[in-house]
């Protein structure tokens, strides 16, 4: 086992000063007149003590209610809880700092007020500083406002540009779709069967006409008539030059 430590208790009530008006509990040895004021003081003191001790116990109880659960939690949950607690601590710290700052500000303003009441407010350097501060603040606010307006204008211009861009984009898209449609229509037309049939008929007619022409030409040449004099015959013969298939 461990070393048995020696323990001594030294108990002594406070000094029995002659004028020491601290009341002592009556069961302590030493006959002393406990005047009623002393008893009252003692009671009041005991009341304050008990209040404070109660407060301490209460706060401990409140603090221990926040105990982490005993059951096995997953690592992630524990980490999340740790993060939450750390965030809480940070928030409480910052709140505390803010409150301290606010208190300092309040104290400062009260001290300032008292100081101002004492000295002549018209001639002090403090008033000059304050006026200067006010002017600067006004300037700051004005320039803030101006910069805000300029930013608004800039924003409007940008918005308009964006709108125009979008409009042009849509127009170009429309043009493109129209062109594509035209191309498609053309291709469609070219591939349609009707056209093909018409084409074929056309070719046939052209060939028939060519054959008939050649026939007429050969007839005229074969008839040994003078075709150079008659203009109509001349025309028919000279059509040999033109090749109809290439028309």
């Amino acid at each position, binding site marked *: 086992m461990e*070393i048995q*430590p020696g323990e001594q208790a030294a108990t*002594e009530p406070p*000094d029995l000063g002659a004028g020491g008006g601290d009341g002592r509990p009556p069961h302590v040895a030493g006959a002393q007149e406990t005047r009623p004021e002393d008893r009252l003081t003692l009671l009041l003191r005991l009341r304050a*003590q008990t209040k*404070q*001790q109660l*407060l301490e116990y209460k706060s*401990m109880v409140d603090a221990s209610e926040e105990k982490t659960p005993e059951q096995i939690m997953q690592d992630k949950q524990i980490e999340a809880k740790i993060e939450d607690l750390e965030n809480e601590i940070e928030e409480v710290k910052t709140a505390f700092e803010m409150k301290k700052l606010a208190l300092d500000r309040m104290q400062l303003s009260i001290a300032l007020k008292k100081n101002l009441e004492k000295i002549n407010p018209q001639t002090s350097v403090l008033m000059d500083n304050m006026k200067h501060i006010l002017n600067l603040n006004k300037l700051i606010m004005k320039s803030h406002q101006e910069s805000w307006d300029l930013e608004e204008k800039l924003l409007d211009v940008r918005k308009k540009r964006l709108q125009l861009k979008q409009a042009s984009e849509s127009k170009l898209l429309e043009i493109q779709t129209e062109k594509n449609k035209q191309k498609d229509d053309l291709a469609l037309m070219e591939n349609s069967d009707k056209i093909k049939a018409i084409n074929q008929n056309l070719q046939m007619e052209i060939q028939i006409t060519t054959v008939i022409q050649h026939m007429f030409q050969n007839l005229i040449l074969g008839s040994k008539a003078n075709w150079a004099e008659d203009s109509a015959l001349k025309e028919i013969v000279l059509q040999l030059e033109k090749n109809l298939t290439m028309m």
Partner: protein
Amino acid sequence: MSVLRPLDKQPGLNTATILLVGTEDALLQQLADSMVKEDCASELRVHLARSLPLPSSVNRPRIDLIVFVINLHSKYSLRNVEESLHHVDATFFLGKAAFLATGAGRESHCSIHRNTIMKLAHTYRSPLFFCDLEIESFRATMAQRLVRVLQICAGHVPGVSALNLPSLLRSSETPAPEDQ
């Protein structure tokens, strides 16, 4: 009971109990005498112990403040205190524990560096007092201080609780404990 817990007993009416833990019996006795001589409205009880754990056979009142006395001249006292620290519940270090280093006046006899003690106090977030307990006047002053702190820890001062003490008693040398 092998571990000292604060607040596990009901407080005595108008009573404040302090426990002095240290190896230097003579110094502890002298300090106890000076404390008891102090003018205090509440009833003081001073318990002395060489080391913890305390024997559970004794019926003792609720301990409000533990002061670990370390003699800078002997490494044994430091080791003793460090071992005793294990037998104290963690909630004690919320203001109800303090360290007292004695013997810093005679620099040549010091075998423990100041920084060791300061680090120890910083680890436990507890206030650290330096006092040469051998010199009468210093001892009286320290006794006065301890009595005030004891009154706060026992709850006899309305409006101040032991929880305020770590932040109030921080000197300019000790840095504020920051999270790592």
